[in-house]
């Protein structure tokens, strides 16, 4: 299918040598993919300068975004701005010591909002751990994401309330869960009914690094042979912590899907319209019983891997600067301005909305208490387990021994160890 649906990456082709998005040969000594064959088939509907790409080849994709009027485009812009505001605020909270860790989604807003906004309510998402924008599109209160990074919860939301599974930290594992879930959807008879409110698909998000995991290959096998309604949405942000994509693959990542018999395409991951259109196409295939699709959203991790990472050790500021010029939010603003859809009052209101979000996040995080000690023993099993029960009882008695008259005795014996 990548032969059918291609779009020349118009103005990017005029960028420095190395291919439309190779981002490397001009950026100093760091190898970031210069040797990676750049697929000429890159779906792009919106250039970094905010110009719509219109070619005969991308007509089918343009149709999928034709209904997005000025209001809808401003909606996508708002989504991306608020996602970035969440990112910035969370990073600051980590720097202030309020969070133990935070993985930024900075730069990947178009990939996440474009794909997330294409989903139907009944579709189900299995994210990795950087999908804050997708979480937002699923109605998760992004503040709840910070519970995990505050260290008070391993999850933070009810997956079935939002059809958005918990973050999975071991990369790639959840692609199998997504595939199994999709196999369940098939058994429920919710594929190919023709009823847009019933047909259900599953989307799983993962990165370029995860594609090297065996579980991702096994997920592709299971999805392919079962023709399961699952969309494999790979955000190739070009960096798996410090390792460039060249350490993961000798071919454009989406081409791997061909060997499994799964149609695939590569989209400009910083183009919210292309991400929306590609996801809509893949969802339509899944909903109708056409099976899985692999989408590689070619983007860039503009921030560090997490707040514990230091990208200056392995990549150049020139490369980062190049990708700042491809910013997903800037290009949509340029489009809105060019099409007369930019409104200063609306923009000012959005700025205020972002400020309010920031204030709410700060207040929320600082107000999060400590979970009860007993909660450590809760939900290990759904049914009673004698070992857990006995250990919990022992620990409660141990804790109780430090209160009242027991306190002085214990502190005497143990030197006030508490």
């Amino acid at each position, binding site marked *: 299918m990548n032969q059918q649906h291609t779009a020349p990456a118009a103005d990017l082709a005029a960028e420095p040598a190395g291919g439309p998005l190779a981002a490397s040969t001009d950026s100093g000594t760091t190898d970031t993919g210069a040797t990676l064959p750049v697929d000429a088939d890159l779906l792009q509907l919106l250039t970094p300068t905010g110009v719509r790409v219109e070619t005969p080849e991308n007509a089918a994709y343009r149709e999928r975004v034709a209904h997005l009027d000025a209001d809808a485009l401003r909606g996508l812009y708002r989504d991306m701005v608020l996602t970035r505001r969440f990112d910035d605020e969370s990073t600051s909270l980590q720097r202030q010591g309020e969070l133990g860790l935070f993985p930024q989604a900075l730069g990947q807003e178009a990939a996440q909002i474009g794909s997330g906004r294409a989903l139907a309510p009944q579709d189900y998402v299995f994210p990795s751990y950087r999908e804050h924008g997708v979480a937002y599109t699923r109605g998760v209160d992004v503040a709840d994401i910070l519970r995990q990074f505050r260290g008070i919860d391993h999850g933070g939301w009810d997956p079935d309330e939002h059809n958005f599974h918990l973050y999975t930290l071991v990369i790639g594992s959840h692609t199998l869960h997504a595939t*199994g879930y999709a196999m*369940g959807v098939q058994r429920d008879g919710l594929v190919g009914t023709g009823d847009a409110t019933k047909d259900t698909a599953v989307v799983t998000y993962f990165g370029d690094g995860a594609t090297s995991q065996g*579980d991702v290959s096994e997920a592709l*096998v299971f999805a392919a042979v079962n023709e399961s309604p699952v969309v494999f949405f790979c955000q190739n942000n070009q960096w798996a912590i410090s390792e460039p994509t060249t350490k993961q693959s000798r071919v454009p990542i989406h081409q791997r899907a061909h060997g499994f018999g799964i149609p695939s395409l590569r989209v400009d991951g910083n183009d919210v319209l292309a991400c929306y259109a590609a996801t809509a196409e893949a969802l339509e295939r899944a909903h109708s019983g056409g099976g899985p699709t692999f989408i590689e959203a070619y983007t860039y991790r503009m921030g560090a891997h997490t707040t514990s990472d230091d990208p200056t050790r392995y990549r150049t500021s020139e490369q980062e600067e190049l990708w700042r010029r491809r910013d997903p939010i800037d290009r949509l603003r340029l489009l809105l301005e060019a099409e007369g859809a930019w409104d200063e009052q609306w923009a000012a209101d959005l700025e205020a909305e972002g400020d309010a979000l920031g204030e709410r996040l700060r207040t929320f995080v600082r107000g999060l208490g400590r979970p009860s000690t007993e909660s450590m023993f809760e*939900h290990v*099993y759904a049914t009673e*387990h*004698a070992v857990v029960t006995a250990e919990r009882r022992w620990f409660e008695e141990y804790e109780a021994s430090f209160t009242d008259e027991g306190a002085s005795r214990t502190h005497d014996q143990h030197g006030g160890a508490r």
Partner: protein
Amino acid sequence: MSAPTTTAPATATGTARLTLGKAINEGMRASLAGDPKVLLMGEDIGRLGGVFRVTDGLQASFGEDRVVDTPLAESGIVGTAIGLALRGYRPVCEIQFDGFIFPAYDQITTQLAKMHYRSRGRLNLPVVIRVPFGGGIGAVEHHSESPEALFAHTPGLRVVSPSTPQDAYTMIREAIASPDPVLFFEPKGRYWDKGDVVLDGPVGDSTLNSAVVVREGTDLTLVAYGPTVPTALKAAAAAAAEGTSIEVVDLRNISPLDTATVVASVRRTGRCVVVHEAATFLGSGAEIAARVTEECFYELESPVLRVGGFHTPYPVAKLEHEYLPSLDRVLDAVDRAMAF
């Protein structure tokens, strides 16, 4: 997806004389018939009926969507089972042999075991993983292992092993009905052992938490599970001929461990020997010995002893009878304990 091609036949009732393997088959048949969300997944379990024929006939009865021949990928089997469980299904996975479980180890220990906990109880994963385990069948390497302690050491998993056809039938049904993930270790060397099985008993959790005293005695407690229970019973019979009265406890569950039943027995007998095929070093026998010592310190007449495999890889088939806890080695341990 196609609907099952045939209507499920009525499940057997009454009492039947079955092999242990057939008892598991009948238990799964009853679970499949009783709950449309139950499905079986594994390599060669459909048309072939499994390499040990434990799923024989089930695909013909319940269709390819409920008795699923999967790709040959253990992590994929368990990982997709997790996804199916999240969608409301109750998958029963067959891992073809004990030594093949390790490609799925990450999915089992990192994902399956922890999902209920990390979701604060919002998500249940009622997944059963059936594993033919243990030696004694003259197999090539990776086909005779006993990795149960690796899973019992993982919070969030239940680890069980039946030793009789009746328990095999009841325990597989209760494992499938459990909201928790269960590692179901089947003593492959005992698949052909026969016994009377009551087929229409109630399904609760009668077997999933409790050990059972299968022979009463007064001088020493033999603790065993799965394939070593018959060995322990033979040892008890042999010892009785020499005047030693042995009580045999069939653990049935390695996690949770029914410490109370074991401790009550050892308090009566004053001596304890644990028998399993797995290596004794850091095996489940070590845990039992520690707990018995902690709780029966003043009643013990001798140290708790263990009989099991050695800290070597499972040996070649021609040496496996020296590796496995034979009747003679169990009786030797009994003699050593009685000599204190």
